[in-house]
């Protein structure tokens, strides 16, 4: 089982308290009725499916209830860091700092 750090609880908690929420930072179109079919398809279904660093949403469902974002390496399954929802993607320097 993985331990995941919830940025709201500021604590490492067991994976089974969490649910996965798919890729993070997918921006919902401001005006869905003006998007083309292709744009709407991309928004709904097309994901980066990264091999390596992946930015993704998690929810501390059986804890504080909050959605937050995580950076996880899809090869090693190791979490690099987690951060609160609404914050921008951490940059390379932040990821390096979190790794060390």
């Amino acid at each position, binding site marked *: *089982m993985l331990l995941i750090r919830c940025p*709201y*609880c*500021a*604590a*490492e*908690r*067991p994976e*089974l*308290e969490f649910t996965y929420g798919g890729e993070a930072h997918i921006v919902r179109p401001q005006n869905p009725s003006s998007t083309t079919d292709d744009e709407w398809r991309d928004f709904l279904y097309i994901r980066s499916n990264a091999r390596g660093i992946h930015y993704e949403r998690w929810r501390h469902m*059986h*804890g*504080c*209830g*909050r959605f937050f974002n995580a950076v996880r390496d899809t090869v090693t399954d190791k979490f690099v860091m987690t951060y609160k929802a609404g914050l921008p993607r951490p940059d390379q320097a932040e990821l390096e700092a979190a790794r060390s």
Partner: protein
Amino acid sequence: MHTHHPLVGRALAGPHARVNMRPVEDCARFILRIDPQNLAAASTIWGGNLPPTTGGLVSASGRIATCIGPDEWYLIAPLAEQDAIESAFGELYATTIHSLVDVGHREVGITVEGPEAVLALQATIAFDIAAMPVGSGCRTIIDKAQIILLRQGPDSFRIEVWHSFADHVWNLLAGICREIELGV
């Protein structure tokens, strides 16, 4: 409605027991959702400090308040104070957006106490119980049932669990207590 309390009359306790389990007497329970910026107003209505950070727990004069999320509090009070609390928060609606929901009907309290209480809970909860601060509370999972776990003292815990899972949680812990007793 309390006649259906699934744990009425049960207890697993003795003067030499390493873990004692008892159902908690009926009490008033609420979930309070409010913007943390308005916590002072809510504390005034509650009549005591509401803990400001997730995991915080304040226990005083028969009342318990624990912060289980950034804007969510679990409140426990004597049954006799239920109406007064509800009407006081009712007046707060006029000035402050919040939500106070009576969840007393759905939860059952179980105390788990004794020198091996940590071991008993650790047997079926996946995070480090020994590292849980005394005077803290959180929502978590025991086996597969969601609970709210309060640590009131080094050897004193309280579980709040939904009625429908209470029997399962009780029997599971009772089995674990029996193993501890037998030194398995």
